[in-house]
């Protein structure tokens, strides 16, 4: 039981304890043990029939992945007409059925499809689609296409709905350079890291002694004691973030250090992120949602080659991760959900690339899902401004995951009711 300490706990007890016992070593561990761990993450799920130990891994494909060259409608002439230089020849397509198939660079996830561990949801989008990277990414991350100015992310709101467990900073862990809006909650912001070994505060090499410096560090970074409310100023935000880092640092590093799986990962930053996530899962971090990133999908020019590489990196990373989870015995309890802010224009442009578009497929991986195709390929004959019409609202996918995977109430989190998709 290595649960660390929560933010609120620190605010309530931490400062007094520092003030009273200046020399008290590692008080955080002691209080955490004394607390008998009332913030157990198993409280996160409380739905009959939904297991308590499930984990979600969100993969963000930044830049707008070309859905049509990912899940290819190879049986349609219209696809080949629209893409004279970029279309994937029929012979290369990894066929899923008589109408669509995967890009050949996705061979590694085709294996998962054959094992029933991959669901492809076709034609996912939302009404009045924005073709701005930033607006559309914000919409996907907040699940708010109507512009109601939602300040927190859809995952953050899920954490908020599960307080007091939301107070545990490691409930959400982002592996990447910047914390996504999706993970931001009114109860605070989870953990973000890239390199576990850099994820610690180091006392000065020749200072006054590590223990004493750690103690003073805590005092200097302790959040102000206040009644509550989330309208904290910048300085409080910094203190809370510093304390979240402080209370989760040892936990995260131990978890990452502890596991030496035998599974080989490809050499890419994305694969390294998934590997770190696999280590943290194996290390029993009390995390419900992990977030990983790939970028570079904004293929306006010379798409051939670049897009192939990205898809191959994605597939190889996911395949290695899945294999690792299987070796750990965790493949049943982990689900990977991959999305991009939009697909791309049906017709290629004059730069052998594609401009910003709309609806595109989403991918879900895991042993605990019902594999196969969901949704439908949007018609290539019925376009709006040269773009596809969406068939499934992305919030239906979120609602399915929230309800059937995480055991949360989608209406509370998404603001209204959405149909479920059958992959869980």
């Amino acid at each position: 039981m290595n649960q660390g300490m929560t933010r609120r706990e620190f605010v309530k007890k931490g400062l007094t304890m520092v003030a009273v016992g200046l020399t008290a070593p590692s008080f955080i561990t002691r209080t955490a043990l004394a607390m008998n761990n009332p913030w157990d993450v198993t409280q996160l799920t409380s739905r009959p029939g939904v297991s308590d130990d499930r984990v979600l891994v969100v993969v963000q494909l930044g830049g707008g992945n070309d859905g049509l060259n990912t899940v290819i409608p190879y049986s349609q002439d219209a696809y080949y007409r629209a893409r004279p230089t970029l279309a994937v020849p029929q012979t290369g397509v990894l066929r899923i059925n008589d109408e669509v198939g995967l890009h050949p660079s996705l061979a590694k996830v085709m294996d998962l499809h054959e094992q029933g561990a991959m669901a492809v949801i076709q034609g996912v989008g939302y009404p009045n689609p924005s073709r701005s990277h930033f607006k559309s990414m914000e919409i996907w991350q907040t699940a708010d296409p109507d512009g109601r100015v939602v300040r927190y992310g859809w995952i953050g709101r899920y954490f908020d709905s599960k307080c007091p467990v939301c107070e545990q900073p490691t409930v959400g862990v982002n592996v990447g350079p910047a914390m996504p809006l999706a993970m931001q909650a009114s109860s605070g912001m989870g953990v973000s890291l890239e390199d576990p070994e850099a994820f610690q505060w180091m006392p000065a090499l020749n200072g006054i002694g590590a223990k004493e410096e750690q103690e003073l560090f805590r005092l200097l970074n302790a959040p102000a004691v206040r009644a509550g409310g989330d309208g904290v100023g910048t300085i409080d935000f910094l203190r809370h973030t510093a304390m979240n880092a402080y209370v989760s640092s040892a936990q995260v590093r131990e978890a990452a250090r502890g596991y030496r799986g035998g599974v080989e990962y490809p050499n890419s930053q994305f694969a390294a992120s998934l590997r770190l996530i696999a280590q943290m899962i194996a290390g029993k971090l009390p995390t419900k949602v992990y977030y990983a990133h790939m970028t570079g999908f904004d293929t306006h020019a010379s798409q051939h080659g670049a897009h192939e590489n990205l898809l191959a990196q994605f597939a190889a990373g996911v395949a290695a991760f899945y294999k690792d989870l299987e070796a750990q015995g965790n493949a049943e309890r982990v689900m990977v959900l991959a999305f991009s802010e939009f697909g791309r224009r049906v017709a290629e442009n004059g730069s052998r690339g594609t401009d910003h578009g709309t609806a595109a497929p989403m991918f879900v991986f895991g042993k605990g899902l019902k594999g196969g195709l969901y949704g439908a390929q949007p018609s290539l004959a019925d376009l709006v401004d040269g773009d596809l019409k969406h068939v499934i609202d992305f919030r239906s996918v979120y609602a399915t995951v929230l309800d059937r995977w995480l055991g949360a109430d989608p209406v509370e989190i998404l603001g209204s009711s959405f149909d479920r998709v059958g992959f869980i």
Partner: protein
Amino acid sequence: MAETLLGTFRPSAADPWDRAKAAHLLGRAGFGGTPDDIARLAGMRFEDAVEELLEYERISDEPFPEVDFSEVRELAQALVDLRRGGAAEREVREASQQLRRANVQKFQEIRAGWVQRMLQTRRPLQEKMVLFWHGHLVSGFPDVTSAEHMAMQLALFRQMATGSFKELILAISQDPAMLSYLDNNSNRKGKPNENYARELMELFTLGVGNFGEQDVKEAARAFTGWTFAANEFVFRRNQHDDGMKMFLGRTGTFDGTDVIEIIFAQPAADRHLPRKLFEFFAYQGPEEPVIDELAAIFRRSDWSVRAVLRALFRSALFYSPRTVRAQVKSPVELVVGAVRALGVEVPPQALLRALDLMGQSLLYPPNVGGWPKGKGWINTATILVRYNFSKLLLDGTMPGAGGRRSMTGGAPGRVGTRARPIPLEQLIDAGRVWTAGDVITQLLDRFIQAPLEPRRRWALLRAFGTNREDAPVTIDSAQFPDQLRAAVHLIMSMPEYQLT
């Protein structure tokens, strides 16, 4: 006339132009400075201090070494020759890899040279604006493959740093790095590429919601044929679509220049850049009436960036609690500011590595939207990197500096990253130190320029083995350097130090 929100700051006995305000101006309009730099600025008349920063052409800047691109030019020419001569594929591939490696090396040299400039320039506002433009009119690796193009773009930003924004937009629309970053170099008649046209309006000039999808398509047509050859802008008439276009409610056979004219006739263009400038120099989420006033100044002055900055830096709002010490330092502000405040020499390679770890890899922006802002810089990982950064200055090393991977996609990050520890005697004025409280006061004056809550100040006293302000300290005692080192590290590991 009613007092406007942007009313001029008028120093008075009750609210004087003092060291705290001078430190604020130098931190925002530049990269901060030593206590002496701040004292000099505080000793000037307020208006003169603002003008010294704004009218930087009056100050001769030292000549900074230029990066030599002759090698990459030769390699690029060799590659062209090989292709023309129908060389074997393997040979072409090797030559192209060699060129790529040489360019990555040059990117690193440009980054190092730029950090050096930020550290040493006597025109801090000019360099701060180069940083602003790099984050606003974004280009970078890997989409820009030519390091020389990036160097040219930075030189353009430096040259037009505070001039007419409209002229800068025309220049950047013809800038080779931008033309390749947003693909306009392959935007041709018949099958336009929308990338530049969209971001020009959405990010650079108007903002989302101030144009439609049809305007993107029409503007893209207008920019067809705008490309470059070697290092020069070229207009290719045969690739240009000179047909009729309907753009933002007007009709004509527009080209890129016309599109820029029409964009600048939109009321949204008056407000977009002033808002970005305000958020960069003052705070996030400005009040709309403030932007109204800046927008009027911007339009009246024919889109003069300097006019907007002058109004801002002279305003009472800029020196009010709403602004002062209310913004999170960007990594560059933190890193360059620390080195400037300490007056020490640190190899730029080490500083670049620290910046990479904090999420601001110069010339490697995350995407066309540029850098995070304000609180966006801070998460559990970056706050620890920012805190540990002082170790780089104190001990010459920091965790992650030789990390398992570079955040800049393989750019060299480990070369010479070890810094020499700072000479501690430089940190305090030994002649004015008798007590632990004196030491803390001097350190806070150097690093934070604001008072600290008593209980936090008390924690810093603990670094000197006491909890009393008046406890005597002996500077030449054996333990004093270690205590001082610990105190500096703790101060730089405080949320207060992260603010500007």
